[in-house]
């Protein structure tokens, strides 16, 4: 953009300015300039200004050194460090030129609005808000009813809000370094709203895209956004703008501007408490604005709006709706069975799912340490400070709020059933009560009905009816790379487990070379991310096995990640496919390997997911393999001592074929054939060289002999055999070849699991019939009789 100014009007900004002014300010610019909806005027103090002050070497060093070693699990210390850093930032003198620019813009704003001391809202706008998977919404501060006197301190407080305990923890968990996330500040005319609220251009609970839901209450919008009141709810049909439902709540309190600055709660006049906050015309005007904004962005929107005392409409903020924005299919979840237990309370169901559990009532966020994983959280209303407890909750119930409040939005993001607006849950429910929560219908039943949460696919898609199970002797595993689809795949395919869980896409989702991550002190980020990803898959398939294959990036792939040039260039040889890769790296750079091992251990021991097994890729020599196993033992993963833990190797390199006996004697539990690499290396065909592709054939006699021999030796040692390449799905005779040679399992892509299982059932039956009837058959693969494959038999 070439903009170097540190203070810019909203009208100068657009979506492309997110790096400079953060998502919130850039969206306000987009709304003002490109969409043309009414937005209260204002300006952004850009990230450049923040950088100018906070990236001064001395200042930066002081901040980094203060927070570098903080243990994020020690809330007390974290809190102290946060206070120290925030005070340090707030005490820094504002650069003179910047202060003058800010005050000049503020005065111009006052002049344009014809008011001497125009009240403004000062809100933070973090530049990481729009990084995928890193919704910073609500993570930073907002100051309302600010005037010239308190403007500069409020801006500094917004800057320092990047260092609240929850923001520090969030960055550490998500793997952002503290100087990677910048902050801009929006200074915007504060609308003295008569009525305000939130509008979703989608039904946020069911995901119906043909509806607009408007929540409205008296006074400033913070009351609705934070869920501290139960607002009116209006549902409008898109296109026709027909109002199809109205639910008028009793609105007893509102937030208004305090004449001394800031805001205050006051009672709503009695005669206004029960009347609708919006007229039909106002509802339709708002819905029309919502449609316009959604049309511009192309995805459903979560919009904050206000109407002033003269009846003028304003859009205060718009951002993509965070749950169903991701989904295509509409959820129309209805329980097929009917719960007959006593109904003890009703509210507004805002996050579907039915769960039974033990009540934990917590009124003050300071007491969330008392909250145990799996409890049902019962409270007045949640704020961002409650998120740690919400993540552990099996369900959430609040006294206040509507479909668009904090508890509703976050619970939907987390996939946790939630009921808001019950009015009296904290009084009626007691610690230890066993209840059942129906987050779709908004009903709380006494006693336990559901045993576990209804299975949802992390807000991605809806689960279809399970595939009918055919029993086969050969197990059918599935290959997976991304944890997000694990539940869906587990449910839809009924696979017997995961035969190959790839690590590479987990690494891609972190988005950095692991050595760069380590340099930035992000070891825990990798451990946490891997443990959580692997755990997500293992939980979805529990108790069926999940075979995690350790990271096997090749140097050319590592090179493409941030940090790759610095750390990987030296490892890049002429042919990365047979270069510095596989288990050889683990012995050479055991610090990275140990992070994977710690993640596995964490998932197995802390999450109780003992169905996680591991597989070592690209095994070349027994000596390196022994080093790998030793490192695993040092990290507490000993496959010889722990009966529940299996260690497999990938057979991809011909040396592993010819030394399979030696590897079996090392105590491996299983092998899996990676037919891509095995074929490449047996035939000497570089799969990335287009000139030799026609020679590549997984059914070449040489490849088949390698596989059959390995399986024969494994059978002798009781080592299981599997295949995770695509050959059995592509060639039916390949599947027969594997089964006739006694494969314990095959692992295929999700879309072929059901067909593969059917094919296996037919083949197993056929082989049984042959045996029962004493039939002599000459099975072939790719026209090669099997006896030709067993080359070693003729030598004995």
């Amino acid at each position, binding site marked *: 953009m070439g903009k170097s100014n540190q203070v810019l009007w909203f009208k100068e900004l657009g979506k492309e300015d997110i790096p400079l002014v953060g998502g919130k300010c850039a969206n306000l610019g987009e709304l003002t300039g490109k969409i043309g909806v009414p937005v209260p005027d204002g300006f952004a103090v850009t990230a450049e200004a923040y950088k100018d002050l906070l990236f001064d070497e001395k200042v930066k060093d002081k901040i980094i050194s203060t927070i570098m070693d903080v243990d994020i699990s020690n809330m007390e210390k974290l809190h102290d460090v946060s206070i120290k850093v925030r005070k340090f930032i707030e005490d820094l003198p504002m650069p003179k030129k910047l202060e003058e620019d800010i005050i000049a813009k503020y005065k111009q704003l006052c002049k344009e609005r014809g008011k001497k001391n125009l009240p403004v809202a000062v809100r933070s706008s973090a530049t990481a808000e729009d990084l*995928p998977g890193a919704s910073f919404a609500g993570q930073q501060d907002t100051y309302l009813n600010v005037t010239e006197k308190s403007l500069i301190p409020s801006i500094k407080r917004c800057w320092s809000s990047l260092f609240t305990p929850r923001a520090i923890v969030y960055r550490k968990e998500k793997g952002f370094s503290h100087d990677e996330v910048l902050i801009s500040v929006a200074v915007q005319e504060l609308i003295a709203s008569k009525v305000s609220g939130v509008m979703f251009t989608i039904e946020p609970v069911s995901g119906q895209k043909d509806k607009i839901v408007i929540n409205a209450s008296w006074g400033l919008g913070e009351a609705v956004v934070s869920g501290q009141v139960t607002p009116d709810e209006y549902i409008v049909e898109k296109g026709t703008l027909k109002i199809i439902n109205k639910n008028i709540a009793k609105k007893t309190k509102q937030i208004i501007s305090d004449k001394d600055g800031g805001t205050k709660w006051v009672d709503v006049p009695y005669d206004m408490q029960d009347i609708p906050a919006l007229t039909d015309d106002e509802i339709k005007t708002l819905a029309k604005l919502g449609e316009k904004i959604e049309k511009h962005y192309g995805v459903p929107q979560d919009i904050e709006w206000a109407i002033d005392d003269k009846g003028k409409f304003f859009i205060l903020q718009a951002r993509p709706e965070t749950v169903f924005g991701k989904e295509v299919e509409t959820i129309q979840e209805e329980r097929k069975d009917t719960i007959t237990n006593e109904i003890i309370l009703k509210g507004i169901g805002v996050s579907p799912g039915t769960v039974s559990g033990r009540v934990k009532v917590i009124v003050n966020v300071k007491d969330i340490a008392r909250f145990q994983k799996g409890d049902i959280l019962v409270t007045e209303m949640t704020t961002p400070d409650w998120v740690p407890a919400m993540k552990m909750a099996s369900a959430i119930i609040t006294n206040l709020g509507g479909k668009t409040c904090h508890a509703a939005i976050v619970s939907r993001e987390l996939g946790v059933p939630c009921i808001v607006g019950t009015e009296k849950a904290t009084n009626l429910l007691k610690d230890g009560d066993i209840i059942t929560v129906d987050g779709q219908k908004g009903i709380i039943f006494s006693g336990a009905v559901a045993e576990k949460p209804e299975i949802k696919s992390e807000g991605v898609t809806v689960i279809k009816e399970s595939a009918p199970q055919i029993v086969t002797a050969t197990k059918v595993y599935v290959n*997976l790379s991304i944890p*997000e689809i694990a539940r869906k795949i587990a449910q839809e395919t009924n696979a017997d487990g995961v035969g190959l869980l790839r690590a590479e896409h987990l690494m891609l989702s972190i*988005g950095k070379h692991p050595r760069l991550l380590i340099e930035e002190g992000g070891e825990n980020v990798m451990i946490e991310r891997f443990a959580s990803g692997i755990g997500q898959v293992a939980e979805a398939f529990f108790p069926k096995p999940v075979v995690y294959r350790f990271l096997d990036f090749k140097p050319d792939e590592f090179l493409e990640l941030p940090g790759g040039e610095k750390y990987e260039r030296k490892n890049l040889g002429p042919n*990365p496919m047979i270069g510095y890769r596989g288990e050889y790296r683990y012995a050479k750079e055991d610090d990275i390997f140990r992070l994977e091992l710690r993640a596995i251990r964490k998932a197995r021991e802390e999450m109780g997911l003992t169905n996680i097994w591991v597989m070592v890729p690209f095994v070349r020599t027994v000596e390196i393999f022994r080093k790998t196993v030793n490192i695993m033992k040092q990290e507490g993963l000993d496959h010889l001592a722990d009966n529940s833990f299996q260690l497999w190797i990938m057979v991809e390199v011909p040396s592993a074929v010819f030394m399979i006996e030696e590897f079996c004697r090392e105590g491996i539990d299983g092998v899996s054939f990676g037919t891509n690499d095995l074929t490449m290396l047996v035939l000497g065909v570089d799969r990335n060289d287009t000139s030799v592709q026609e020679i590549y054939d997984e059914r070449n006699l040489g490849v088949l002999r390698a596989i059959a021999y390995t399986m024969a030796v494994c059978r002798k040692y009781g080592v299981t055999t599997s295949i995770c390449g695509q050959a059995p799905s592509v060639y039916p005779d390949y599947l027969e070849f594997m089964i006739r040679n006694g494969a314990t399992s095959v692992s295929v892509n999700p*879309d072929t699991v059901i067909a593969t299982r059917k094919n296996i059932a037919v083949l197993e039956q056929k082989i049984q019939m042959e045996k029962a009837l004493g039939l002599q058959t000459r099975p072939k693969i790719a026209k090669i009789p099997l006896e030709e494959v067993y080359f070693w038999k003729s030598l004995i």
Partner: protein
Amino acid sequence: MIGLIDYISEKYSNVVEIGIGRYPEVAYSLYLKGINVIATDIYYFSYKGIRFFIDNIMEPNVSIYNGAGLLYSIRPAPELVIYMKRLAKNIKADLIVKPLSSEFYEGDLKRYKSINFYLWNFS
């Protein structure tokens, strides 16, 4: 990725990148070359002028992709490629997959200016 960017920009004017993740390099380079680029992912992503839609390729909103001459994906999860092929075939668009170097597909392996990728012609 220069070879891939050049290949796409020389042959297509309307393209969709499936699963952009955190890597806008190719889409943004195409955008700067004047190609009409849309990006999708299951997680929200925003980068400069790239038009973005949240979409799940396993159950795609076809209206996002209609009119594209090419769908492409960089280092996708292998299990998703089947869904990309289905969609490309359905809307009669070509498909390019640039996989991790040890992942292979039944497709036409192309090499262009030192970059390998798979191409399926459905247009």
